[in-house]
């Protein structure tokens, strides 16, 4: 059994860890509210953007000559994956969940003998992926300096992607991020952004629009913007998810630390009592023998 002094030290150390996790939990809770708010506020923009594009693409007359960002290159050989993670750790399974999802997608692509290229956004994802896929990572982007997700950063990532697409470096682009459902649940998502996947085209109306200038020109201007918008949406969802995940992780850690302190305190009290009893026995038996 550990000595009384050791136990005392351990209790103190667990208690100070608990203080840290508690503080982190509270910080995360405050940040979460802000992140959630901005994620919700950002939704109308991406939804509207999507609607306009759907309306446009349903109205486009010449499918053959549709912009490549919409229709794809017609090939399916080189896949670009943009893995979006956080720059900080201690947020539970947040990063690992994205990585897990991405890895299973990667192995599927490699099994099909297609070429894989990876862009990581956020340093945590880069740390984990470079152990296995180091030769596949073509770019690592990190926004450690920016406090909140902002459109400017998203636009930078979008521009990089479009530049590479126009240079013919890949055919299909998929982004990986965590979708924020609630504080305990975040769902890792794989979303294809090039060519545009119009799964949700159920509300493409027959409404005829006047276009000024013509459809093609609008589309070719709009699609690059849409890429940035989608990335921005992913960033907002990600930052809300990160804080939510960190909050529940730190809540768990605080609770576990509390349990540990209780257990250690009982052990400490027992050993102190044992020492007192032992001393008493010694005194009494000493007195009896006289």
């Amino acid at each position, binding site marked *: 059994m550990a000595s009384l002094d050791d136990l005392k030290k351990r209790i103190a150390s667990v208690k100070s860890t608990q203080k840290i996790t508690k503080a982190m939990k509270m910080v995360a809770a405050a940040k979460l509210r802000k992140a959630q708010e*901005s994620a919700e*506020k950002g939704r*109308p923009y991406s939804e509207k953007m999507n609607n*306009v594009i759907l309306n446009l693409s349903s109205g486009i007359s010449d499918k053959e000559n549709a912009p490549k960002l919409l229709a794809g290159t017609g090939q399916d050989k080189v896949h670009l994956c943009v893995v979006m993670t956080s720059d900080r750790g201690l947020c539970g399974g947040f990063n690992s969940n994205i990585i897990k999802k991405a890895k299973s997608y990667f192995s599927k692509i490699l099994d099909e003998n297609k070429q894989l290229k990876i862009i990581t956004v956020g340093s945590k994802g880069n740390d984990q992926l470079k152990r296995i896929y180091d030769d596949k990572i073509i770019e690592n982007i990190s926004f450690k300096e920016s406090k909140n997700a902002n*459109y400017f950063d*998203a636009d930078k990532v979008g521009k990089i992607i479009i530049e590479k697409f126009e240079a013919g470096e890949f055919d299909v682009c998929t982004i990986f991020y965590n979708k924020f459902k609630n504080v305990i649940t975040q769902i890792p998502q794989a979303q294809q952004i090039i060519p545009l996947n119009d799964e949700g085209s159920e509300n493409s109306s027959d*409404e005829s*629009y*006047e276009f*000024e200038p013509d459809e093609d020109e609008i589309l070719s201007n709009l699609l690059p913007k849409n890429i940035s918008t989608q990335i921005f949406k992913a960033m907002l969802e990600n930052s809300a998810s990160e804080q939510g995940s960190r909050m529940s992780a730190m809540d768990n850690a605080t609770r576990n630390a509390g349990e540990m302190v209780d257990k250690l305190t009982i052990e400490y009290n027992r050993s102190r009592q044992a020492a007192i009893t032992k001393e008493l026995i010694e005194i009494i038996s000493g007195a009896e023998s006289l």
Partner: protein
Amino acid sequence: MSEEFKIEIVNPEKSFLVKDDVSEVVVPAFEGEMGILKDHISIISFLKPGIIKVSSKSGDENYYVEDGIVEFKNNNLSILTSSIYNLSDMDKSVQQDLLKKAEEEAGKSDINDQAKYLVDQKIEVLKTLN
């Protein structure tokens, strides 16, 4: 019969402006200024740098935009833009900064004609503001 329709301006961060009592909106569309009244035909167009003028009961409001998309449908006008400023509370220093940036951009030798045209537009608009 009211002659009013609804306008919504959104930027990536939030809904910038929502109003349902506007009577006329003038937007700097790509191929020239465009005034929109109630029951305009459905239209999608782009914006170039310029001033959006929103007229409603409570008076006129002016906004400076750099780019964006307008969509008008069923008397709903949506404007999507990543850069918008309300002129009444826009700082002179912000204008100066934008102007300086635009002038730097225009001075670059490797920009294409369309970008050049847009930047020139921007400079012109910003100069008239000052």
